[in-house]
């Protein structure tokens, strides 16, 4: 009775979130234990996180957009990889739904899923920032 696309979507989300959660715990442990030097020293954070994002970026040289990719060797920005996994799970799930809808001949639903993927990709590209 449960539509096929829901079962597929559930499986993708389940696997994706488990992997993302495990990565998140691992990368954060590395950060806390000082395994990798962070871009912003942890002792400085208490003073800096009261600033707006704009002023924080100006004060620390923290990356905006996709520039964090260049900093994955830093303890704090390594965590971004795990955070991105969670965000990617959502996008991948909609893409998989679009394929499932097309296969089942549910055109209207397929269009919505596809448009959803496009909106998320456009947002990820920085087109709206």
């Amino acid at each position: 009775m449960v539509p096929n696309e829901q079962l597929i979507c559930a499986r993708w989300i389940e696997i994706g979130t488990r992997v993302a959660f495990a990565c998140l715990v691992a990368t954060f442990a590395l950060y806390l234990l000082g395994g990798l030097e962070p871009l912003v020293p942890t002792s400085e954070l208490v003073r800096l996180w009261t600033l707006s994002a704009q002023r924080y970026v100006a004060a620390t040289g923290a990356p905006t957009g996709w520039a964090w990719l260049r900093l994955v060797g830093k303890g704090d920005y390594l965590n971004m990889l795990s955070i991105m996994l969670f965000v990617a799970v959502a996008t991948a799930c909609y893409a998989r739904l679009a394929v499932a809808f097309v296969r089942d001949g549910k055109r209207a639903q397929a269009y919505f899923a596809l448009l959803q993927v496009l909106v998320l990709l456009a947002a990820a590209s920085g087109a709206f920032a």
Partner: protein
Amino acid sequence: MEWWIWPIALFAITFVMGIVAVLAGVGGGVLFVPIMAAFFPFHIDFVRAAGLLLAITTALSAAPALLRSGLASVRLAMPLTLVSSVTSLAGALIGLALPSATLQAALGLAILGIALLMWRSRGAEHPDVPRTDALGAALGMHGVYHDPALARDVAWRVHRTPAGFTVFAGIGVIAGMFGLGAGWANVPALNLLMGVPLKLAVGTSGFLLIGGATSAFWVYLQRGAVLPMLIVPSIIGAILGAKLGVRLLRGAKPALVRRVVLVVLLLAGMRSLLKGFGI
């Protein structure tokens, strides 16, 4: 205060929040943002980005079980998610453009409004939908789910779909602007406006907010508002708390927990409002 106290405190607080959110039937974001913005030193930009990611991760964690049981409907959620995804982008941009004090005061007002909505709205278990509208029918917004408590299948369909789209567009703006997720509004909109049975509305709400919260989160990320030291312990705490909350659900008293949540929201809303006015 030493820096290492903060991740421990964040983990502990979001762990409790995760339990309470499940017992009270609210999303994690609606508790996280007001409490962090009102009582913690983090700038509201970082809090809102963290609130959105918290909403995404907790909704993703709950989604597989709800989708498999049929208590969440992808077919119902998909078109509404798309609308709120687009408008939440606008909400995030508006939120980042506003002065912090204005936003803090507006957040206070929004939280007080949400508390009022939660206090006043009484869900209808199985709303009467005499006939579906043309748009709802065209989008296939109907189906059947199995209700284990009733031990029978429940057929559902929607009405007032155009009004539903309008309301979800507004919900997207508010969710993106304040980083609140949207569970607090999704359930009454689906249930009371569109006539979706309460259980299906609650189950679908989480899946529905994933798209909107994700698109708004990208805007915050692009502006550098993502702070791992705030976000990561909060996510881990909330997810683990929610897992324990599900186990405690059977022996809990949801009405009492909900009253506690309302009091917390009222306090946080008022504190946020005062903070916005520099008091």
